[in-house]
């Protein structure tokens, strides 16, 4: 289908006995920002490497722009603007050399836009990439990823270890990309506040499996943090269906709950408990509820 930028079916990847991706199904529609979140080692980068065609599917299927990225790396990579935590830049080059080299590689290179970005980012032409600060190097990588106006902007942990000013440049780049009709962003990060700020959809990956895949607004409207008070002290977290994560001691417990909070009432009445307060949750709290593991009954 023309509207699917990425389409992954039953993708499996194992490293030795460890299953890095376990029958992952995943699609990315055109024109949205998708935030990919998960703990280190959960499988985010492995998934991204399959999209870039750097890894061949052990089993299952990967399609990017409708083609297999391993079979047509040139065709796929020339349409993806990629920025990773490491940056992967040739450190011996000067900024102007990087720009010249990239302009020759990408057919869609926009020299005017590259110039604007270079000015905006304060990158001087004769600076060696190797001598730039981490933040400036990230900006140089961002310039290359953006200036050919890629159909897909793919950012793999782009903000790691960067200061807030550079991080804001990266987020602004995401927004400018998506504001141009028909372009798409896949953004992996462990800074969940950033993911919440810009994503249309969030995919959470845990131990090689997708545990959550929904529109961010839906997620926000269907998860709650509920403070409870019980009539008697509870030695362990109560076992209630729909509960994701418990915190508390004695009579006071807090639960991260997915679904209609009203559904809690019958089981609470049995335990002589009541709802003290209820509020929405941040992605951070949902993440901890899925990944934290602790305090599960």
């Amino acid at each position, binding site marked *: 289908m023309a509207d699917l930028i990425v389409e992954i079916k039953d993708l499996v990847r194992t490293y030795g006995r460890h299953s890095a991706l376990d029958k992952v199904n995943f699609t990315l529609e055109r024109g949205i920002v998708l935030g990919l979140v998960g703990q280190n080692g959960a499988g985010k980068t492995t998934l991204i490497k399959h999209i870039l065609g750097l890894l061949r599917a052990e089993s299952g299927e990967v399609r990017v722009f409708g083609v297999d990225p391993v079979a047509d790396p040139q065709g796929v990579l020339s349409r993806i603007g990629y920025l990773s935590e490491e940056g992967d830049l040739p450190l011996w080059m000067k900024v102007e050399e990087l720009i010249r080299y990239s302009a020759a590689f990408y057919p869609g290179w926009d020299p005017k836009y590259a110039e604007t970005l270079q000015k905006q980012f304060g990158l001087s032409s004769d600076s060696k990439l190797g001598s730039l600060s981490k933040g400036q190097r990230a900006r140089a990588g961002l310039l290359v990823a953006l200036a050919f106006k890629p159909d897909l902007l793919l950012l793999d942990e782009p903000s790691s270890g960067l200061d807030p000013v550079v991080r804001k440049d990266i987020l*602004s780049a995401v927004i400018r990309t998506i*504001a141009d009709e028909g372009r798409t962003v896949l953004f992996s990060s462990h800074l969940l506040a950033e993911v919440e700020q810009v994503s*249309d959809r969030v995919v959470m990956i845990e131990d090689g499996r997708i545990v959550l895949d929904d529109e961010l607004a839906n997620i926000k409207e269907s998860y709650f943090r509920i403070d409870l008070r019980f009539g008697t002290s509870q030695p362990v977290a109560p076992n209630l269906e729909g509960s994701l994560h418990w915190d508390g001691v004695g009579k006071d417990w807090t639960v991260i709950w997915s679904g209609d909070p009203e559904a809690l009432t019958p089981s609470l009445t049995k335990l002589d408990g009541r709802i003290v*307060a209820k509020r*929405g949750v941040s992605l951070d709290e949902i993440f901890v509820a899925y990944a934290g593991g602790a305090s599960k009954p």
Partner: protein
Amino acid sequence: MRLFISPTDGIPIYMQIVQQIRRLVASGELEAGEELPSIRSLADTLVINPNTVARAYRDLETAGVVTSSRGLGTFVAATDQSTAHSERRSLLSRKLSDLLVESNQMGIPFKEVQEMLIESYEAFQLSQNSEVNRG
């Protein structure tokens, strides 16, 4: 138009925009006919997804708070006095229900809340008067 967005708040960002614009309109800070920033420029300013701004504007349009015409922009819709008043009432009623939930949690009976409200009102009037006198 000044909006404050908190991405980590439990409320979805589009809803935060909708609520804040409704409030600005109800309070008269945004007047009928006034133009809202374009989707793109609001997204740029707030560093949020333009799709999110578009959804908020769509919701506001459905609710009759704004009107938009392609190419021209998005404008605050004209509301009659009674709609504006009922909108203000509904904003206030949300705060009142928060107050009631909290007083209930603290075990303060409603009668006492009523008394406190009257006391607060009297103190508020005094401070208003002294300001007028000073001015």
